[in-house]
């Protein structure tokens, strides 16, 4: 898929954890303003892909372009400064900081206080429950609230590209629906490009434009999400039909 509008483009990216070859040549391209999703089983390398994009794991080979700029050798803070933001897997919020301080940390690299305030209001309008919990410690929030906080924190840097790592992990089905609706709303409100990593293939393909299927470090399928939802292979392996 060649795409002149690509905000993020990975070309033949390899990543190793010591001797383990975790990513074996990933290539994908995400257009501006879309929601893309990456689905696959446990240990397929989905989270590693996100960590490699962000520079937490160094890609040993291959190219990662963000808005045409190579970022594969940049440190995480530099990637963040370019306008990429990520919610880590398993809702890693700061447990001993209040909800407000957590959100404030999301805007760590920003100096435009007035705009930060506006974004804070926006996050509170997306997740009204966070406003009630403003002074409470992050670690005492419920699972769903923590996930909302993690997404809210990632939004506070006003990213161009938002990387979400398994937002549905360990949440009740009802809450998963709420979270996915909000993800869709974020995309529509602000035009933020979203790259979603999920195990819940049904939900993820349902809200995304483009989908990638990953197996043992490789992307095995890439197509429009609507097409993937109908594909026999995906249905059998991931949708449980």
């Amino acid at each position, binding site marked *: 898929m060649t795409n002149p509008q690509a905000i993020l483009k990975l070309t033949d990216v390899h990543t190793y954890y010591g001797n383990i070859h975790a990513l074996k040549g990933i290539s994908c391209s995400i257009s501006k303003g879309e929601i893309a999703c990456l689905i696959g089983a446990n240990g397929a390398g989905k989270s590693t892909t996100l960590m490699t994009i962000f520079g937490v794991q160094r890609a040993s080979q291959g190219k990662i372009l963000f808005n045409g700029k190579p970022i594969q050798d940049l440190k995480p803070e530099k990637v963040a400064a370019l306008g990429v933001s990520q919610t880590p897997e398993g809702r890693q919020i700061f447990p001993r900081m209040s909800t407000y*301080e957590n959100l404030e940390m999301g805007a760590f690299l920003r100096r435009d206080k007035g705009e930060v305030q506006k974004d804070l209001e926006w996050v509170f309008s997306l997740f009204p429950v966070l406003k009630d919990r403003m002074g409470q410690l992050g670690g005492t929030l419920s699972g769903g609230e923590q996930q909302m906080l993690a997404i809210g924190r990632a939004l506070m840097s006003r990213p161009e590209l938002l990387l979400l790592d398994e937002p549905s992990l360990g949440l009740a089905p009802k809450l998963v629906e709420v979270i996915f609706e909000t993800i869709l709303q974020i995309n529509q409100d602000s035009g933020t490009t979203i790259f979603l990593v999920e195990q819940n293939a049904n939900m993820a393909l349902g809200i995304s434009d483009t989908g990638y299927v990953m197996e043992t470090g490789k992307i095995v399928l890439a197509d429009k999400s609507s097409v993937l939802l109908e594909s026999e292979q995906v249905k059998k392996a991931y949708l449980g039909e």
Partner: protein
Amino acid sequence: MIQKELKKLVVYGAFLVIILTPMLGFRSTTFEPGRVLKILGIFMTILVLNIVVKFIRSQKKDDGRKKTPWTEVVRKRINRYPKVYTLGGLLALAFAFPMFADNYMIDVGITCLIYVCLGLGLNIVVGLCGLLDLGYIAFYAVGAYTYSLLNLTFGLSFWAALPLGIVLGMVVGCIIGYPTLKMRGDYLAIVTLGFGEIVRLVLNNWDSLTAGPNGLFGMKRPALYYPSFGEDGFTWVTYYLKSLPSLYYFILLIAILTIIGVRRLDNSRIGRAWIAIREDEVAAELSGVPTTWIKLLAYALGAGFASVAGAFFAAKLSYTNPNFFLFMESCIVLCIVVLGGVGSIPGIVVAAFVLIAAPEVFRGLENFRMLAFGGIMTTMMILKPEGLIPASRRRRELRADQEPPPKD
């Protein structure tokens, strides 16, 4: 219940006799039962008192009302007055102290204030950034030796040597910080412990530079300069801070500046970044915190504060030797931070006074004064695990049951 407790008492007593007799009873070759009985008596009194307290408590009826702990009551009482009065009162007390204290008390006061500086410096590394450092005293040694050597070799004054000492301390801080960037918890503790010992052993064995175990002596005290308009015109007069009260005021000033500095850091962006790293390093990295630099900065600043204290220490005694910088000192500083309440500035100040003054108070117990020290620490950790004056964040963390429950 009484019977059960008495049974316990007998068992404990027998146990103590078995342990204490060989440990204390023999002095070289003669057996002295008196020594054993003395210590045994102390222990048994404590145990009996414990039973009495337990008995009285069990007699008291539980009236069902939740009592507010006395520390909370004190906090509320203090908070009723504007902060200016509390701080002003404490400052006035600190300034008036040398006027009614004897030299011994002033000397203990100076030591306490040195440990306040050390505790606050270590608080940056341990309390804010969450890096367990067991070799912190090495930076104190660097400060002390930098001033000593610069003063003895080049005749640099305290004020000229101080910035150099701070810079050198920060450099050494980075030297230990850099290789340990990826380490956390126990591993980091062991590496820093080893580092602290390396510094001490180098000081002990590098005879040509540090005079080894003999130590360095004859450094000038810190000096003040004031203008004088005498017969031969305008001159600067040097006044060496030799008397204990003048040294006390000097370290008081340093301690106040340290408190202000650490407080400003605590509330700054950098302080936030430190706390974020302590909470979750990956999440901090993803929020755009340059973790490498921020962690090195914590080491460097912590070391910088320790070197100031070290330089003052060497200048005050006009003597320094490697045995001032034993591992025990690192432990005491860490105890101050933990006892006071990790991350809490007023707590650390109070704890420094408690822990440094307590062994002095118990000096009558001779070698057993460290026992009192251990007793204080153990009691504190049982009664108030969050420290004397906990930082608000930490108090809430350890009393999570008082948070409003989540609702989904």
